[in-house]
């Protein structure tokens, strides 16, 4: 009897190991408060442009993406600490960040947008000198505000809180990535009637989203790059832009 069980167990192990050896699991950390790129839907699932992009990349390159909801504030510290393999959270590629982590090839071109109340006359950040402008802590939007001298930057844990403060009247503007700005000012009920995009902030340099991995993690980086390349070849990224970013 025991021999039969043992044999069955060996067969199971062989089958299971060949099945498992096929696809590697890559755990992505996501700060799912950034609609429409990554957010939590009514069914409490993490969805969005980046999620669909990575799922498609995984299907084509041969890895299984698993998405973990992680707060933005500690997301880079967690990567360095090895809590997950990669960050798929609309992370803009910057020289500063390249010093502490490795990036994949870009998967989306992004610009910073200035969102203001619907009846505001401000057009650029320079019009808001002396006033408070909000952004999510540690994002390129926040750094963009800091670059304009005289504007008072306010940092928020989540972009949604900054937007809420904007319509409450405590801020003169919010700077964030343009898909998110468009989502809040054109689609979100309760926000779209009160907000508008004043302008796109031109910094002269193009800004791109990339997947961040721990410095030196070549294996995961190569898989992800392969996936992104294949998605771009097949034109799936254009379909996703049409689906999520109107």
């Amino acid at each position: 009897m025991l021999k039969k069980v043992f044999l069955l167990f060996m067969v199971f192990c062989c089958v299971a190991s060949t099945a498992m050896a096929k696809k590697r699991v890559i755990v992505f950390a996501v700060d799912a408060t950034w609609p429409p790129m990554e957010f939590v839907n009514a069914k409490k699932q993490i969805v969005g442009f980046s999620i669909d992009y990575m799922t498609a990349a995984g299907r084509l390159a041969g890895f299984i993406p698993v998405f973990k909801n992680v707060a933005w504030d500690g997301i880079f510290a967690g990567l360095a600490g090895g809590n997950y393999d990669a960050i798929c959270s609309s992370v803009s590629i910057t020289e500063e960040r390249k010093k502490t982590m490795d990036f994949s090839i870009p998967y989306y071109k992004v610009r910073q947008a200035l969102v203001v109340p619907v009846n505001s006359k401000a057009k650029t950040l320079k019009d808001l000198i002396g006033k408070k402008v909000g952004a999510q802590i540690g994002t390129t939007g926040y750094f963009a505000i800091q670059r304009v001298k005289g504007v008072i930057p306010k940092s928020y844990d989540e972009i949604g809180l900054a937007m809420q403060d904007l319509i409450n009247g405590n801020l003169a503007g919010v700077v964030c990535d343009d898909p998110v700005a468009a989502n809040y000012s054109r689609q979100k009920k309760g926000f779209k009637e009160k907000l508008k995009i004043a302008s796109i902030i031109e910094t002269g340099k193009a800004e791109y989203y990339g997947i961040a991995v721990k410095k030196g993690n070549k294996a995961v980086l190569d898989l992800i790059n392969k996936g992104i390349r294949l998605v771009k070849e097949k034109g799936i990224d254009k379909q996703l832009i049409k689906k999520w970013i109107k």
Partner: protein
Amino acid sequence: MGEKAPVKIEVTDGAAIPEEKDSGLITAWRISFFGSLALIIGLCVFKPDPYLEILEFVPDGIRVTFEVTIISIVLSFFVGLLTGLGRISKNRVINLIASTYVEIIRGIPLLVQLFYIYYAVGSFTRIPPFFAAILAMTICYGAYMGEVFRAGIESIDYGQTEAALSLGFNKRQTMFYVILPQAMRTILPPVGNEFIALLKDTSLVSIIAVADLLRRGREYATSTFHYFETFTMVALIYLLITLVLSKFVSIMEKKMTPYE
């Protein structure tokens, strides 16, 4: 007729108030205080990048933390006094209002209260962040202080009230001229303890974009990625401030209980 030993109310959420019996050279307080002071100075001298940078980045945050703490503690002292008096009042309506206030506020976490006042209520009326922070801290700590006041007042022997009434004081005069001054001796040490707890709780106001010490630390860490160094420094600064305050509270306690 000996004096009854004054009631001591222990509130257990503050830093360890050094006891009288700690009279040796090496005490926990001294190790913590001089240790953290030496650590801050040492780190800044031997590794100015990034420790000195962090120290130069946060002073306005420290000022905001102090402002929120001091204004909140003063306001919640008065709210606590009113609440405590309300809870022992014979007037049913006042008693119910005070008791319900205490029940509700003690049942909701301070972080939730902060969110609620700033974002939820703030969507109907405009509330500036600094004001919202102070409002939330005052409401929350006023409830706890109310209980401290109530316990302090109730600890005064009823004989005092009887004597005052028989001397011709009315109820209000008894309370303000006889009971409260004596109750203060029991009440002020735990109030000091609450002061320290409030200072640590002000770290929560960083959630409503008030630029306090923790928020400044987080802003620095998320743009330079020096997480370990930043939070080490922030923790040491909070520790230093808390230790200094707990020393003051211990001195005050000594003055309040000369009979022990």
